[in-house]
């Protein structure tokens, strides 16, 4: 090792820094495959959309289907449930945004913005708190009650009470016929 010190950086200093920087970049690049392997694989990403037959569902009934590994609620609301959901003032909602993938991101959480047809509510069955599946027809608002940590949703799947921060999400879906929808 040279013992003389100079004020100017030497060529050796440059080589040290360049080598070190190259090693750091190389290490970072080498680490990426080990991180990214944990993300969903191509097989998972290729998951198809699903179709749901609405014909057998009675008024006042809620069914659960599996969509991309998660539960999805399909609920045929009674006139009373619709009326209750429509009567709620926007200012009473902890989450004022519709969370409807079929609408713009900033659409307000009115009942009309939560469904395509008033009778049919199609919402994700994943509690926005910590991912449990809420139970239908329970809680103070007649919608859903999550037993894990006590979040309560109304008959439009909107959060009303408890720790969950958001309304139940609504995925993209379309009516193929009056009694058949395609989700995803």
């Amino acid at each position, binding site marked *: 090792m040279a013992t003389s010190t100079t004020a100017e950086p030497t060529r050796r200093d440059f080589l040290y820094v360049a080598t070190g920087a190259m090693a750091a970049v190389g290490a970072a690049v080498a680490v990426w495959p080990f991180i990214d392997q944990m993300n969903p*694989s191509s097989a998972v990403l290729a998951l198809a959309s699903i179709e749901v037959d609405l014909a057998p569902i009675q008024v006042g009934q809620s069914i659960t289907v599996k969509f991309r590994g998660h539960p999805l609620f399909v609920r045929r609301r009674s006139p009373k449930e619709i009326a209750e959901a429509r009567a709620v003032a926007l200012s009473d909602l902890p989450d004022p945004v519709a969370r409807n993938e079929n609408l713009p991101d900033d659409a307000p959480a009115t009942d009309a913005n939560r469904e395509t047809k008033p009778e049919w509510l199609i919402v994700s069955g994943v509690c926005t708190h910590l991912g*449990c599946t809420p139970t239908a027809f329970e809680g103070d608002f007649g919608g859903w009650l999550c037993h894990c940590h006590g979040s309560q949703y109304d008959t439009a799947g909107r959060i009303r009470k408890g720790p969950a921060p958001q309304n139940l999400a609504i995925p993209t879906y379309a009516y193929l016929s009056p009694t058949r929808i395609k989700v995803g």
Partner: protein
Amino acid sequence: MSGPSTYVPQSGFTRWLDSRLPLLRFAHDTMLSFPTPRNLNFWYAFGAILTFCLGVQIVTGIVLAMHFTTSAMVGSVPGSSLAFDSVENIMRDVNYGWLLRYIHANGASMFFLAVYIHMFRGLYYGSYKAPREVLWILGVIIYLLMVATAFMGYVLPWGQMSFWAATVITNLFSSLDQISGGLKVGSHIATWLWGDFAVGDATLNRFFSLHYLLPFIIAAVVGLHIWALHVPGNNNPLGIDVKGPQDTLPFHPYYTVKDAFYVALFAILFAALVFFAPDLVGNPDNYIPANPLVTPADIVPEWYLLPFYAMLRSIPQKLVGVLVLGGAILVLAFIPWLDTSRVRSNRFRPLMKQFFWLFVVDCLLLGYCGSQGVDATLVGVPLVWVARLGTIYYYAFFLLIMPLVGIIETPKPLPDGIAKSVLGASAAPAE
């Protein structure tokens, strides 16, 4: 290590080995001749007991892994999975499989029972105070690793509690969405942890891989923990420094025998649990195969995580709840600096002693709150409010009481030395 080595090789072979790899010297100095305070009581046996627990978990875990199938794919019965089936196969068909699995599952509970006593012991006698801060922080790291390992192990049988525990815990990260705007950083982390858009086969596989790895990481950190213990030596119930050889005894035979006795007592309790009440602390819902569409009515973590669960549940705001949960463990790492007292042991801290026992009661009360339903009450008071008060005291104990009591409290006079205090006036003077 305190003091020079006292190892003297006795044979030609050990002399030859000692000059090449002083392995026997190391073992002699750390496990046989190591000078240990002569007044260590029952509560100091939990280090040995915890080592025993780790060994039991690793040995039973290795053999269970020989029979476990890491797959959430549908098993022999619709609704079941290969993982669930393989655990049932272990319980019914594998020779002594029931015993090995019950030891492993209850071993986790015994491990946490021992670690909590060990932690409260350290808290009571001030074992975290200088010069043992690093020792204490390594202990907090071990505890965190234990929680992670136990959680991932709990997921493996792929029952209802397994599945929903995995869902709830990994969703804790989604709370970061609330501070990352449209980037949804939290959701991306959750997806990354799952390897899917929900807890599923990919999640089970990686959890198994990590559940197998982490115990060996724990063993390595335990090595550092013991190393950090052997630099200043043990604290003791008086919390005063060792002043000379009159205050200590060689670790062997005094503490090897004492520790072995208590390990045996602990093993009796362990065996009683395994043989007479193997499902006492387990949740019966975990014998129902995982169903991603139905959350069990009452989802409760294992008993050793209930106090933290109660804190999470008592906070009505998601992100704050998660931060309170994480902070409750993180705060432990800072107590060497939060405690301002000059005196280590609570034996000489009349005021702090009362707050300490209140803290123990608080942790038990939080545990009770966590075990009950969301709307439960205690003598008419909603438990959510009991849990809120409990959470406030938990934090206040570390952030307010520890710094303030250390300043305002007048400790009792400390004894002159360990030997004098243990042996009375007949103690031999320092040699």
